[in-house]
C-alpha cells in the first residue's frame, strides 16, 4: 500500500514537514472530537427522550444504553469517516494529495475513542496517583515525602509485603504445577475433555463466590460438636483436634492461597495442554525408541520444550496475585496476619479515608508489576517482528 508515513515525505524540508504534521494532527483531533461529541450528545439525547417513556427500571435503561452505545460507536466511526471524505474527496484534480492526507488522518479516527478512554482511565490515573502520593488525606495539601516515610515505618505494610511475597512464591508455582499435572494426565484418557472442563470451571466463579465456598469448607465448630466444614470433619475423623483454620497465624495465609490456586489451576492447565499438544511427535517417538520411561519423557523431553509457555502462565498468574484483594477481604479482611497490599490499599481508601497513603500503596503494587510489564512488552515486540 501507499506509504502514508509523514516521515517518508521528501527529506530536507523539515520545517514544512513539521507544519504539515501539525496540520494533519490538528485536523485529526478536530474531526475526532467533533465526531465523539456529536455522537455522544445524540445518544444522550435519545436516551433521555426514550427513558422518559420507559417504565422506571435500571435493567431497561441498561438495555437502552447498550443499544445506544453501540449505535453511537457506529455513528462516530461512520460520521467521522464521512467528514474526512468530504474534506479530502477521493476525486477531482487533487486526488493523489487528498488520498495521502486522508490516509494519514484516518487511523487516528479509528483509534480515537480507544485512545481517549485509555488516556482518561489508565494513563492519567497513573500520573495523578504519583502526584497524590505527595499530598495529604484529601489530596489537597502538599506533604512532601511524608506518606513514603510513613509507609517505611508501618507495621501493617511490612506484614502485607511479606504476605504478598508468600503469595507470589506459592500461588503461581502451585497453580502451574497442578495445571501441568492435570494437562499431562487428562491428555492421556478418553474422558479427558470432561475432566478438563470440570477442573477449568472454577475460573468462572467470582473470587468472592469462591471465598464463600472455601469458608464453608474451613468452617469450625468447637470440639465435641459435629463439624459441618469438610476439612475439620476429615481432621476430626482422623482423630485430631478441629482447628479454626483461617485464624491460625502464618498458616492461614496458605488456606487463603488455596482458594486462588483452585481458581487458577484450570487456566494453567488449558494453556499448558495446548503447548504439550504442539510438541513435535518425532521427539517423543525418538525417546520411546531409545527406551525412555513415561516419566523421563515428561521431564526430559516435554517440559524443556514448553518452557516459554510455562513462563507466560507463571507471569500471568503472578500479575493476578499482586492484585489479589477479594479473597482476603472476604475471608479475613486482613485480620490474623493475612493482610496483603491490595486489601491494605482498599482499607486506607475506604476506612482510613487517606487518599495520599492509599496512593502510595497503589504505587507500590504498580512498581512490583513493572518488571513483568517490561518483559511483556519486549516479548510482544519480538512476536510482531
Amino acid at each position: 500500500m501507499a506509504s502514508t508515513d509523514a516521515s517518508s515525505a521528501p527529506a530536507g524540508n523539515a520545517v514544512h514537514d513539521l507544519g504539515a504534521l501539525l496540520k494533519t494532527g490538528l485536523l485529526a483531533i478536530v474531526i475526532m472530537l467533533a465526531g465523539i461529541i456529536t455522537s455522544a450528545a445524540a445518544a444522550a439525547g435519545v436516551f433521555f427522550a426514550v427513558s422518559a417513556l420507559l417504565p422506571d427500571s435500571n435493567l431497561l435503561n441498561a438495555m437502552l444504553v447498550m443499544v445506544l452505545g453501540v449505535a453511537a460507536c457506529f455513528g462516530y466511526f461512520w460520521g467521522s469517516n464521512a467528514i474526512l471524505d468530504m474534506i479530502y474527496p477521493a476525486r477531482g484534480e487533487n486526488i493523489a494529495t487528498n488520498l495521502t492526507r486522508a490516509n494519514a488522518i484516518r487511523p487516528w479516527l479509528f483509534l480515537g475513542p480507544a485512545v481517549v478512554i485509555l488516556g482518561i482511565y489508565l494513563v492519567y490515573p497513573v500520573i495523578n496517583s504519583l502526584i497524590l502520593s505527595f499530598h495529604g488525606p484529601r489530596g489537597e495539601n502538599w506533604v512532601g515525602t511524608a506518606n513514603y516515610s510513613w509507609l517505611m515505618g508501618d507495621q501493617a505494610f511490612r506484614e502485607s509485603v511479606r504476605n504478598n511475597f508468600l503469595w507470589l512464591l506459592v500461588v503461581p508455582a502451585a497453580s502451574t504445577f497442578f495445571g501441568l499435572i492435570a494437562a499431562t494426565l487428562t491428555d492421556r484418557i478418553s474422558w479427558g475433555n470432561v475432566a478438563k472442563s470440570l477442573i477449568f470451571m472454577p475460573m468462572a466463579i467470582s473470587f468472592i463466590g469462591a471465598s464463600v465456598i472455601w469458608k464453608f469448607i474451613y468452617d469450625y465448630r468447637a470440639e465435641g460438636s459435629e463439624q459441618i466444614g469438610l476439612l475439620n470433619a476429615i481432621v476430626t475423623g482422623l482423630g485430631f483436634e478441629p482447628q479454626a483454620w483461617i485464624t491460625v497465624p502464618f498458616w492461614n495465609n496458605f488456606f487463603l492461597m488455596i482458594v486462588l490456586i483452585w481458581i487458577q489451576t484450570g487456566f494453567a492447565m488449558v494453556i499448558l495442554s495446548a503447548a504439550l499438544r504442539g510438541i513435535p511427535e518425532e521427539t517423543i517417538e525418538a525417546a520411546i525408541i531409545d527406551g525412555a520411561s513415561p516419566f523421563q519423557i515428561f521431564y526430559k523431553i516435554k517440559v524443556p520444550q514448553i518452557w516459554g509457555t510455562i513462563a507466560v502462565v507463571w507471569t500471568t498468574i503472578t500479575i493476578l496475585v499482586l492484585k489479589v484483594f477479594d479473597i482476603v477481604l472476604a475471608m479475613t479482611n486482613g485480620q490474623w496476619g493475612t493482610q496483603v497490599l491490595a486489601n491494605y490499599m482498599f482499607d486506607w481508601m475506604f476506612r482510613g479515608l487517606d487518599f495520599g497513603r492509599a496512593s502510595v500503596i497503589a504505587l507500590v503494587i504498580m512498581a512490583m508489576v513493572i518488571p513483568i510489564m517490561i518483559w511483556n512488552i519486549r516479548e510482544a515486540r519480538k512476536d510482531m517482528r
Partner: protein
Amino acid sequence: MSGVVGKRPALSWAVNLSVLFLVALWTLPTFGILVSSFRDKDQLAVSGWWTSLTGSERNIVARTDAPDDAVEENGQWVLSGNVFESGSGKATAFGISSREPNAFEAGTEAELRDGGILTVQENGDYRLVYDEQPEGRRGQRIFVASVEPPKFTLENYDRVLFSEGIGKSFLNTLTVTIPATVIPILIAAYAAYALSWMQFPGRALLLATIVGLLVVPLQVSLIPLLRLYNEIGVGKSFIGIWLAHTAFGLPLAVYLLRNYIAGLPREIIESARVDGASDFEIFGKIILPLSFPALASFAIFQFLWVWNDLLVATVFLGNNEEQLVLTGRLRELLGSRGGNWEILTASAFVAIVVPIIVFFALQRYLVRGLLAGSVKGG
C-alpha cells in the same frame, strides 16, 4: 503420546484414578454448597452436607403436658403426645435428666422420681402413666436422641431472593454487565484494525503502550477516577461504572483483537483495496464478520470479569439497595450472616450460576481466547 500408556494397563489405571481424584478435588467444594443450599436450615446447621442423604442425628428437648391435664384411663392417669414438633423423626433413645440424656432405649420404660412411668416410642409418641392423679403445672422434660429424615427445600432460595435482597442485586449485576460487555467491542475492534492494517507514525509505540496497560493494576486508577467523577458530577452511577469497565476491558480487547485481525490473510484485504474499497468498508464488510470468534472470546472474558468484579463496583457504585451488585451483597452477607450457611450457600449459588452456564455453553471461545494471548486478571 497415548500409545505409551496404552501398553501399560497398570499405569493407565493410575492415570485414570489420579484424574478422578483431581476432578473430585476441584468439583466437590462447589458441589458442597449446591447441596447445602437445598437443605433444611436446621439440619444444615448441625450436620455436614455429605451426610445429607442419611438423615441427621439431633438431640431435642421436649416437655410433656402439665400433670394437671392428665386424663384418667382405666384407673390410671395418663399424659400422652409426641416429642417431635414437626411430627416426623425417629427416636433412638431418651432420658429424663440432662446428665443422662440417652439413658433409656426407645420403647423401654423409665421411672420418674414422682412415681410416673414414661415410655417414648420410636415414632416419638410418649406416654406418661401415674397411679394417682398427679399435680403441677410444669410438664416433665424429656431428652430425646433422634434421627431426622433428610429434608430438602427451596425455602432458602425463596428467602435470599425475596427478602435478603439477592434478587434485586441480581438485576443490578445484569444492569452493570450488559452494556459494559458490549460497548468496548466495537471501540476495540476499530482500534485493532488500525493497529494491524493501517500505516501511521507511532504505531509501534501505541502497541507497546497497550501491552503495558494490560497489566496496570486497577488499584492505581481508583482514587484519581473517584475524584474525577466527583468533580464532574458523575458520582456513583451506572453510567460511571459502564465507562470504567469499558476502559478497563479495552487493553485486553485491543490486544486480543489485534492478534487475531493481524493474522487474517493479507490477500483478502489487499484485493479489496485494489477493488477500491475504503478502509471503512473493508472493516465493516470483511474484518468484522471474519473476526467473530475473537469478538466472542473477548465478550466472554469481559462478561465473566464484569459479572464477578467486586472492586470496581464497590468503588464506583453506592452501597444501597438500588446499586448493590451480587458480589457486593455476598460480601455484606458474609459479614452480617457469617454463620447462617443456608443463606450464604443459596446466595453464593445464585451469584455463580450464570457465569457457570455461560462458561459451559461457550467454553470453546473462552479457550481460543486464552490461547490467543495473555489474560487480564483482577
